[in-house]
């Protein structure tokens, strides 16, 4: 009789303390996320030391809740997976050391997972992956196009040269005096505005899949500043819509071009910014007429969670990937070296 594979995964790379249990790589048994966002709001962003303190407070509580929700015990667990990086080092260390202690206590294998691989594999919890595939990863810290020819193989064909899209959102939100985190507020405002302002799109070299958002960010700040000097006011809704359209145009166009060039079967959206309604709608519109299948995970799997780490961890476990007791948190972990 074949035993079920049960992965317990821990994710603490930023400001969510998350633990999940996933059966046979795709079936979510529990997916618990303790968000610290209310605590960090007062600082206007994530404060690493505060995040680390919250992780220590929450870690055993969240592990217990996940096991209870899944209705299993540690005896049912096959392996412990954990985010090794990238992320905030002090925050990563809580998850990594909890995972090591847990695996050691029960004599279980320990599987290290790359956070971005996790975001991409969130899709596998919803739909089977079809290779070759292209993943557009957009989050607070990342804007990347990743080509996957098979499970566990990652080739970054484009990435941001300056700010991540999520960072640009946060900075523009600050210019508009919107509360942290700014992304969802801009997305909401944009729904009520029109893209009437002429903002730049950074296409870079004709054959490049890289991104750049710092010029756009400066253009937004200048536009607001110049209007103020002339005594004019710009409708925040229109500014948000114009900014969002500029970001999305570049993301969607480059994704479609890469999908064609690499002749992929599937295009996946991944990362926290995948929650953005404007981006989802634009990708859906673009790919409705194209041969590639488009997959977008539901919102709760786009933002940081541990089910996605378990999904990626399951594949890594199957492929024999293991960490020893010296596993450390690696803030700048390389995806392609996975």
């Amino acid at each position, binding site marked *: 009789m074949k035993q079920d594979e049960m992965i317990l995964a821990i994710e603490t790379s930023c400001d969510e303390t998350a633990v999940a249990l996933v059966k046979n790589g795709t079936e979510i048994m529990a997916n618990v996320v303790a968000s610290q966002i209310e605590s960090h709001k007062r600082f206007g962003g994530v404060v690493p030391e505060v995040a680390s303190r919250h992780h220590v407070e929450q870690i055993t509580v969240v592990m217990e809740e996940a096991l209870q929700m899944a209705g299993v015990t540690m005896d049912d667990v096959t392996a412990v997976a954990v985010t090794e990086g990238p992320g905030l080092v*002090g925050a990563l260390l809580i998850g990594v*050391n909890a995972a090591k202690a847990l695996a050691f*206590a029960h004599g279980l294998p320990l599987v290290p997972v790359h956070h971005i691989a996790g975001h991409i594999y969130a899709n596998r919890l919803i739909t089977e992956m079809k290779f070759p595939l292209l993943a557009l990863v957009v989050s607070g810290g990342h804007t990347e196009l990743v080509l996957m020819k098979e499970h566990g193989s990652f080739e970054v064909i484009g990435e941001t040269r300056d700010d991540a899209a999520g960072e640009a959102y946060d900075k523009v939100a600050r210019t508009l005096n919107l509360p942290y985190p700014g992304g969802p507020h801009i997305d909401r405002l944009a729904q009520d505005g029109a893209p009437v302002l002429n903002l730049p799109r950074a296409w870079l070299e004709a054959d490049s899949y890289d991104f750049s958002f710092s010029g756009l960010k400066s253009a937004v700040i200048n536009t607001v500043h110049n209007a103020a000097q002339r005594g004019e006011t710009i409708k925040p809704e229109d500014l948000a819509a114009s900014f969002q359209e500029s970001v999305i145009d570049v993301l969607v166009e480059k994704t479609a071009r890469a999908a064609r060039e690499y002749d992929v079967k599937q295009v996946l959206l991944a990362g926290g910014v995948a929650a953005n309604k404007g981006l989802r709608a634009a990708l859906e519109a673009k790919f409705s007429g194209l041969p590639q299948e488009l997959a977008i995970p539901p919102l709760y799997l786009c933002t940081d969670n541990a089910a996605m780490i378990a999904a990626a961890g399951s594949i890594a476990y199957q492929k024999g990937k293991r960490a020893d*007791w010296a596993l450390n948190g690696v803030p700048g972990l390389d995806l392609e070296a996975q």
Partner: protein
Amino acid sequence: MKALAIDTSNLVMGIAVVDGEKVIGEYTTNLKKNHSIRVMPAIHDLMKEMNMKPAELDRIITAKGPGSYTGVRIGVTIAKTMAWTLNKDLSGVSSLEVLAQNGKFFSGYVCPLFDARRTQLYTGLYGFEEDRFQAVKEDRLVLRSNWLDELKRLEKRILFLGNDLDLHKKSILEELGDQAVFGSAADHNPRPSELARIGIEKEPESVHHFVPSYLQLAEAEVNWLAGQKK
């Protein structure tokens, strides 16, 4: 009672395994090296040497700080996780109280200290009172000059312990003169077996609620609170 004691709160990393009154294994290093990489292999190796399985432990004990924020969280996270998942008792001991034990037979007071930058100290005062060696002034984060003023008024000999003493010895001597006594090299490393001994006697903590003893708020929180008062 079998217990595992873990101290990663400062540069000295210590692991001990005790069986009742007996210290059966102890491992200490005093290196500027990453605790996150080294402590779990050290625990694994020591337990293996003892031929002991994690499930055989009755209690996990950890030094709860003060010290390096990141360092103390590593030991506390491992201890909490092991105690929770194996359903064992957890106890936490002040890192200063552990260090103070190295002077427990000194006739005066014992002052353990860790440097806290900008002429501040993590420190406390320990001594023999009511038939046992215990804290006589509670652990604190304090400006060195204020602390030395306070100690001077005690008019009693004080033994100073800690690997950061080199940074403060001159000021201590200037202020306290003959009142100050200094430990030697072997007295400055907190011993994990002492951590285990004290930890065994403590009331177990609530695992879910147990947090490090930082002795101060995160800097961002201090600034935020200051902003609120304006």
